């Protein structure tokens, strides 16, 4: 299981994970969307060699996964753990990923860009995630000429990633700001200072389980350190606001909150059929209950792990079988009961 799901990081009461992504392309090759399979294979070898035969201590820790060699369930499973992207799956005839054993680093090859380096850590760890991404970037560059231009920086297939090619994001659990309606202010303010806020499980799952992802929009004309410090400043402010909203809820609406949390707990421990969106919502309630000390003897790691395990791909991988949507709802309820004990 990926480190970001297994371990608890700094500010874990609110920040689920931190991700840094770099987009890079190699000189002399067209961008992946017009790359033929033969050239794509050549490119993959070049990147793999630069990582595997590099002189870094990281070299022995990567597994190579070709999208075309794995099942749709496996692809979905990696996607739900954020180790690959929808675009890599769309390019599954040419797309590959180098993933380290801890599942903190994935290097996507032939995604929208030739190389996407991504580091994913539990909690708020912007500097550490950036350092990791930066080390891999330097390691790859030892043997490869990146497409780079003095004015536009790192050249990317889509002009929205030009310049640094850096996208930094944090995944936040904001139940109190959502319940009190203050979240709209956060969304508006973030947009005004050039940050994007999204739900975290893509299509049709907006803000499922009160989870929000905040990331930088602009990548050109701003340094990597500025991007990181912007996200860091905003995240710290949101953390403070969420904590104070939680305190207020606890003081003014304690019984109502307790009722919500324990009802959710009862349903999770006893239900026989459970949709993904219901499960996400209920797990969010329990996490809030644990953070506020309303429920004791519970394990936050298990709940974090559950948020990934109940997704369709992970669930099917866990039970090692293909499941229809209605079967998934039954197995999901079963898995939750088992894990909550």
């Amino acid at each position, binding site marked *: 299981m990926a480190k970001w799901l297994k371990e608890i990081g700094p500010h874990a009461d609110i920040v689920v994970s931190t991700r840094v992504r770099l987009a890079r392309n190699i000189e002399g090759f*067209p961008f992946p969307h017009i790359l033929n399979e033969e050239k794509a294979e050549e490119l993959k070898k070049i990147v793999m060699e630069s990582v595997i035969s590099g002189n870094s201590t990281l070299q022995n820790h990567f597994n190579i996964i070709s999208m075309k060699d794995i099942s749709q369930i496996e692809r979905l499973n990696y996607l739900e753990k954020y180790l690959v992207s929808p675009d890599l799956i769309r390019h599954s005839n040419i797309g590959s990923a180098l993933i380290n054993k801890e599942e903190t680093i994935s290097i996507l090859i032939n995604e929208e860009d030739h190389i996407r380096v991504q580091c994913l850590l539990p909690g708020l760890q912007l500097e550490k995630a950036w350092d990791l991404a930066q080390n891999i970037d330097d390691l790859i560059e030892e043997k490869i000429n990146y497409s780079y*231009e*003095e004015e*536009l920086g790192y050249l990317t297939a*889509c002009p*929205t990633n030009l*310049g640094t090619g850096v996208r930094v994001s944090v995944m936040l659990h904001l139940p109190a700001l959502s319940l009190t309606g203050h979240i709209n202010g956060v969304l508006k303010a973030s947009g005004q200072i050039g940050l994007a806020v999204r739900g975290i499980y893509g*299509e049709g799952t907006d803000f499922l389980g009160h989870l929000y992802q905040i990331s930088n929009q602009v990548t050109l*004309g701003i340094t990597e350190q500025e991007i990181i410090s912007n996200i860091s400043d905003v995240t710290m402010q949101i953390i403070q606001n969420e904590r104070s909203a939680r305190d207020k809820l606890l003081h003014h609406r304690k019984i109502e909150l307790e009722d919500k949390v324990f009802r959710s707990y009862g349903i999770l421990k006893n239900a026989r059929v459970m949709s993904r969106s219901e499960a996400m919502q209920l797990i969010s309630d329990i996490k809030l209950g644990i953070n506020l000390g309303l429920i004791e003897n519970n394990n936050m790691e298990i709940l974090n792990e559950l948020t990934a395990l109940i997704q369709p791909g992970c669930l099917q991988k866990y039970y090692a079988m293909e499941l229809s949507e209605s079967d998934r709802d039954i197995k999901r309820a079963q898995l939750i009961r088992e894990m909550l004990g």
Partner: protein
Amino acid sequence: MICQDCNQRAATVHFTKIVQGVKNETHLCDECARLRQNKSFDDVFSIHNFLAGLLDVSGDSVRKQEYPNNFICSKCGTTYDYFKKVGRLGCNNCYIEFKEKMNPLVRKIHGNTLHTGKVPKRTGGIIKKRRELQQLKLQLNDAINKQEFEKAAELRDKINELNRQILDM
């Protein structure tokens, strides 16, 4: 009536579409209807469509100007029209060949057209030195304004040395 997408839940949303006299009925449950709607919204707001949209409304000069069919990247064969459609360029050379058209778009997206971040270590030596040179020149002006002539002399020597290194590269 059962939803025709999931074949499980009761259909609660009903569409009727009549095209050239042919009637087409769709019956969906709430969830599947929402999925279809989200999908169509996602298509409309995908970043590449959105970019193409920006290009189409990025001022009369771009909109009304007819690009000849030979407005094409000599290295990868991508045409500017194709970029407008898919929102992706074909290779690094496209950025050079479409530069005039790209700059306003890049400014629109990022509010800027000048990279200030990381420089590749191996291939970016000269760029680093030029940036360093720029910094030193600013410091030199500052020193002169403050009448710190000893410091200014030191900076001048550093600038000369850097200029020499750049010429040798």
